[in-house]
């Protein structure tokens, strides 16, 4: 277990959600002296093949601390596979994947990576349908994840406060006792984002958050994500160009498993290669 995560366990809630500059000042993560890189996420020459098909081909990507990045690319460009590699679901055949400069993501499983501080939102909203909205958040709140510890569990004041705060944040306070399965699609998307925030991750991977949302919900989601990115790094995979424009961040274009172009959206969209494979279609 890395120093960073054990630190975080000792002081739960150190990374507050409230947009409060004082809190940010306190909680600037100190760079580990042993870190090999200053980047929060460092992917180098990652290759993944399925039965000869190269889903990722020598992919390299660097995400800085508290950076927001949008990733675009046509279907089959390797976006989901890249997320699988970062979260430990898929093991790369070759390549380096470092988190916070010291944690080798290629050797850890999903649970360990999640506990390190990487949260992932799926393309289709995945929440615990049979649990209440409140329980969904509570299960995600950063706490001891071990089985035996959770048999003897009692809710702490801190946990109650966190749940209230997060429900407020994702605008589900009024739905607190509804079953999550009964929520609308957009509400489920937000609930899942709320669960992610409850984990207090340092890096959020968000897969098509705007899919299936109304225009208003899409715009709200962009605001929410930008706000989140003030305190942590966020990687957004998205097809919706308007949404990417709203985010107004650096864009990485994936194509056939590698990075085709990187830069501001306007610059990227002017790149003839990008136009050819993606935008020009």
């Amino acid at each position: 277990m890395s120093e960073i995560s054990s630190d975080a366990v000792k002081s739960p809630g150190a990374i507050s959600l409230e947009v409060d500059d004082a809190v940010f000042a306190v909680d600037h993560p100190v760079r580990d002296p042993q870190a090999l890189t200053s980047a929060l996420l460092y992917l180098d020459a990652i290759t993944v093949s399925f039965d000869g098909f190269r889903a990722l081909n020598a992919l390299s990507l660097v995400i800085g601390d508290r950076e927001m990045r949008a990733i675009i690319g046509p279907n089959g460009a390797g976006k989901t596979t890249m997320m699988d590699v970062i979260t430990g679901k898929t093991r790369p055949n070759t390549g380096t994947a470092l988190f916070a400069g010291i944690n080798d993501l290629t050797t850890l499983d999903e649970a360990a990576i999640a506990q390190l501080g990487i949260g992932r939102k799926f393309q289709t909203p995945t929440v615990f349908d049979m649990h209440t909205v409140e329980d969904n958040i509570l299960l995600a709140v950063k706490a001891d994840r071990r089985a035996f510890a959770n048999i003897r569990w009692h809710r702490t004041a801190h946990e109650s406060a966190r749940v209230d705060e997060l429900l407020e944040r994702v605008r589900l306070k009024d739905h607190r006792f509804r079953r999550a399965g009964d929520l609308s699609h957009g509400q489920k998307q937000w609930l899942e984002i709320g669960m992610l925030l409850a984990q207090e991750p340092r890096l959020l991977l968000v897969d098509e958050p705007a899919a299936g949302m109304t225009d208003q919900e899409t715009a709200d989601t962009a605001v929410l994500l930008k706000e989140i990115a003030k305190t942590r790094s966020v990687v957004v995979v998205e097809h919706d160009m308007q949404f990417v424009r709203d985010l107004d961040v650096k864009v990485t274009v994936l194509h056939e498993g590698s990075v085709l172009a990187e830069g501001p959206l306007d610059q990227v969209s002017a790149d003839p290669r990008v136009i050819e494979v993606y935008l020009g279609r």
Partner: protein
Amino acid sequence: MRGGRLAALASGLGPLLLLALLLAAPGAARAQGTPEAPVTPAVPVTSGAPPAVTADTGFAAILGKFSTDRYADTAAALAELATSPSPQAAAVVDALADGRLLYDGASKAVFIRTPAGAIRDAATGAPVASPPVDLSPVRANNRVRRAIEAAMGALSLLDADADRRREAAAAVFKSRDPAVLPTLDAALAREGVPQVKAALAEARAAILLNSPAAPEAERLSAVKLLVDRGDQEALGLLRTVPADAPAAVKSAAQVGIVSIERDLKFWAVAQNVWYGLSLGSVLLLAAIGLAITFGVMGVINMAHGEMVMLGAYTTFVVQDVIRSSAPHLFDWSLAIALPAAFLFTGLVGVVLERTVIRFLYGRPLETLLATWGVSLMLQQAVRSIFGPTNQEVGAPSWMSGAFQVGQMSITYNRLWIIVFSLLVFVALLLVLKRTSLGLYVRAVTQNRRMAAAMGIRTGRIDALTFGLGSGIAGIAGVALSQIDNVSPNLGQGYIIDSFMVVVFGGVGNLWGTLVGAFTLGVANKLLEPFAGAVLGKIALLVFIILFIQKRPRGLFALKGRAVES
């Protein structure tokens, strides 16, 4: 749209039925029967009429000994008869055995009374118009009876029927009675059928091998002949070579023993592989329908074994009807049962899909439970109608018998079932890949909503697919009725094995099912000599449990995105 769907069904099922019919046709099968050349012995041998006209004096002298009424003379005469070339010898020995050999105390003439009561001259076989009045039977005691048996054995080496000659040669090979040697030589000299000739030569070698009187060269060639025979019996014989045999013979026997043992080991493995292939074909038949319902549709059909059972019972009913109304069609019974079983179990499958399974798509565990319930009901229904005992299902003539390949024996029913299972496999592959039904099936299983949007009636395709899987289970039942007990529990024995095969091979992959079935079949039979049947099976189950841990999606797993959805 309706016509199109029917055409899809017809084009889908047509090739399957055609292949099934072709396979089951008895005419095609019979052409492969054992080649049995007409028997043409070099010298015509007769055991009854027409009689030979002349009798040589030597034979008359032998016959004379029967009239002395002394056991010792009778036995001696029998020994001489055994080597006599006379065509009447066999008739005389037969008559003596049945107490029909008579002699006239006054004239010392010997006669045979035919079973019908007529009296014939023993030497010529000619009818005697006015036999002497007081004829006495030649008596026999135990010693004489033994001599009769030996003489009969020797004489049947000269029988008119090639099969009997071969049997006699095999008997001599076992008894190794040196006294038969002269007859054997005589028989060898005139034998025309190569197989019988070989058997006679082997019998001769068996005698010569341990006969100290035989020249060394003869004994060496006997060893060589036995080594060529190469089976367990030859091995046993070579081991009996006595210590006082010439050194050359002993060392040749030693070398022979080693080489036979090596060969036998090879053949034992080959035989087990054959048994394994046979078991694999049974597994393939049982699992292939499941590969459709489970592998393609994702439906866990626990009643699959019962579909197999229904197919077997269809065979029973078809044979029953044929026996009572058209016995001459019996060799065609399987050909008739195949389409009948396919249609009947296919229909049961369609009904099952429409009434139960379609409400449970996407809930595999519930499907498992519901179909288990259906399986219980089907079992009990069959038990109520036909009773709990095994039903007799006969084998057409072309399914019975066996032939030898080297040192292993291959039965026709197993051979045909292997061929049949492969044909069913190919037919199914063609249905899925080449017909419109197959196209619709693949479309629906890959993307139900899109298929529906394209105008495919997904409900009907589901029913037909399930019917196809069930129908194939039914024709598997026809085949399995030939090698397994047809009872209400028939299906229970196959369901776990079938699931193992499909899961091991990889769900959704017919080739995986093929490879899985034969791999598990052969592995099971190769394990048996070491572990025993039960432990071998347990070992295999444990292996599969561990295998699924390593490759949860089986041998030929689909990889990548498709798996996740």
